[in-house]
């Protein structure tokens, strides 16, 4: 089963997105802040990471940089999720090492599409 790590501090968003992805047949692991995200990326070895950008402790950009600088994890695709819809946000996310980017509120079909692309590319 494909394992997805969702890093998201907002409880409702976390619950909602994880439930919806569970229904789509993914195995979900969840981290509530950036530090935990990095830790779980290491311990859980997910197939893909969904990363909120505005996170407490370590923010999403920093967490992404940390994960991507780890030789064992750097091939794990990361999709940045953020409520900011500025083109610069997209660039910042990509600069930090994210493989793709999506805005919140999440449009599930679009997100699933992006996830599928990255997961297939990684096979």
């Amino acid at each position: 089963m494909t394992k997805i790590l969702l890093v998201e501090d907002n409880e409702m968003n976390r619950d909602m997105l994880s439930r919806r992805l569970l229904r789509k047949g993914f195995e979900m692991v969840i981290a509530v802040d950036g530090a935990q995200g990095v830790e779980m990326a290491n311990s859980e070895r997910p197939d893909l990471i969904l990363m909120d950008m505005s996170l407490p402790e370590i923010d999403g950009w920093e967490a992404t940089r940390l994960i991507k600088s780890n030789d064992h994890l750097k091939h794990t695709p990361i999709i940045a999720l953020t409520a900011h819809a500025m083109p610069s946000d997209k660039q910042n996310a990509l600069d930090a090492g994210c493989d793709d980017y999506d805005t919140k509120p999440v449009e599930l079909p679009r997100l699933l599409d992006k996830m599928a692309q990255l997961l297939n590319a990684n096979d």
Partner: protein
Amino acid sequence: MIDANEALKNEGLESLTKSLQLLLSGLELMQFGFAVFDQDLKLVASNKRFSEVQGFDTSFCKPGACLEELFRFRAKRGDFDVENDDVEALIAERLDRIAKLEQHEVEHKFADNTHIVYRYEPISQGGVLCTLNDISEIRRAETRIRQLARMPEENPNPVLRFTRDGTMEYANQASEVLRASINCQLGEKGPKDLQKLFVYVLKTNEHVEFEYDHAGRTYAIMLAPVVDEDIVNVYCRDISQQKQAQAETTRAREKAEEASNAKSTFLANMSHELRTPLNAVIGYSELLQDEALELPDISDIFVPDLEKIHSAGRHLLDLINGVLDISKIESGKMETYCESFDVYKMIEEIPATVAPLVDKNNNTLRVRCDQNIGTMHSDLLKIRQSIFNFLSNAAKFTEQGNIELRVERGQLNGEQAMVFTISDTGIGMTPEQQERVFDPFSQADVSTTRKYGGTGLGLSITQQFCHLLGGEIEVESQPQKGTSFVMRLPVFYQQQDASSEDQLVADELHPVQVDNNARKVMVVDDDPVARDLLKRHLEKDGYNVTTVADGNDVIDIALDWQPDIITLDVLMANVDGWTVLSQVKNDDRVCHIPVIMVSIVDEKKMGYTLGAADYISKPVQQSILREVVAKHIPESSAAQFELLVIDDDEATRTVVRHTFEKLDCNVTEAINGQAGWERIEQLIPDIILLDLMMPEVDGFEFLDRVKKTPEWKDIPVIVLTAKTLTKADYAKLQGRVENIYEKSEAPLTQILGSVSEQIRSNLVAPS
């Protein structure tokens, strides 16, 4: 018989009479009035001017006339501004003074404003000479000067006048406060800092304006030099109030900006705060819909309601986004992100995106856009959103109809433009509705909103985007027939924020300096925008760039211009880039030039097979372009040090050649001064080694012409000669050559060793 003496006497009289007549005629012509009176003050002689000026009749003013009578006549006429009783006294006084035979002048102003100075002068043989001088012009000029002099006095602003050494020579009334505050009065020296300025403006003969703060007041001061008089006029204006008003305006503006910033920050934060719970509303309603669908018993009841919650959530989200956009635009915070992109590629993706909207009302979308329409430099996201807004608008108000998106090239204010036309066969608009179509929150009417949905912000935002990108929108519509929107956008949009605008102006004022020695890049592209962009990028990096529009011209221009590198577009109208590439690579004359392929089509392999040096994909990013061009541009040959040896002795030339070629110099030889000149005409060397004794043109003559020619005079010259130099020779060479070596001094190799040392030790270092 006439006595000889008498005859002589008569002749003398005749000559005397002639002289006298001449004298009198001369006196008649004089511009001064003139009269001679005898001891009894009876007129002896006068000229015409004398009568004219005083308005005397010549029958009245004739020899024998009494001066007293003349006075009386004038008195009667009212010339003298005195009572009747006093007239006699006045006349008596005047006559008395004249009779006393003392020289004096009396000025009189006649009724016609002529000012006459009467000058009475005693004649030694007795009698009086009276001359009349018309000084009306002088008096008028004086009056005028007096009147003008009032102007600075009446000027409410301080006006001062200083001499070169800083002494205040004049000051008007209004300068009192200023004078007191700078502690300088008439005849005193002004403030030290001003004195320096006086000298400066007198030297430059230019006005200088500046602001001068003193004792809590601000003055605008202008110094106007009067070089002829060594004087500086100083005009001041108290601008304290104006300054204060300005400061207040600035403060007010800053406050307003702060408020506007606060508003923008608030809106940005609010939108984030609103979006987060909305995210939950929309997400959970979708989730519940999914879950409800799996429970057939309750799905019929819940799903429609969940759909309503979901769509209301989406609507709210659109509204928030729209309001945020509008407020950003209004506060000037809406930023544009310009990039170069292929228009066809952007258009190609649109049908898939809008398909759900188009299908909803059973509409058909037709897209017409030439595959080779070319690139644009603008804000891709905003253009895409604008087209999307138009299409979603068309889809909303059209049922079972046709929607068309057409893209063409056109003109806008004399510049190249991309024209996007979005037309539909929908419900159309009345002229009144068309007028309000771009106003925020003003859909045709309230019922429209209820029936068709939407935020009423889309077109308003679209119009603002379009203006932001330097374009314009037109709308044409007929009720029940359909609507078409035409959006014209400049193909090359230069971001309008202050810095880039300044940059643009600066670029225009100071076009990129193209160094003729710079490496040459030839840009081949049939799209003028792409050409211009590449040219700008490359010129910024210091390359000398020429652009070519037609691939067929590449070989000819390359032969002529000898570029160091070529960038070549793949998709061109006349001939494709691959053909041009193989032409270049199969031509011995130009095949050495590296070619970089530039294309939106990713066909690297094809490029490398055909001999391309590298491949850049379009839209071109400056950093990549810079890197790739720098990587492939051949090593410069200009870095070689050029040495010219001029010597008739072949042995010397050979030794020099061997010595310096070992040091990586490029050595050229000339057998005498004439040949030397010819060499320099072809290539200016970095240094010349010059012999003095040579046939035809010797070293001295050679040197003379070199030092007289502006382009040549800075070439360093080292003299290397077998001649034993005389004092005169030294004098001729002194200061014109870097060094003088006599061959007899030491073995040639040793001399050349020190010459090369000298070259190396920066004296004549290659640049």
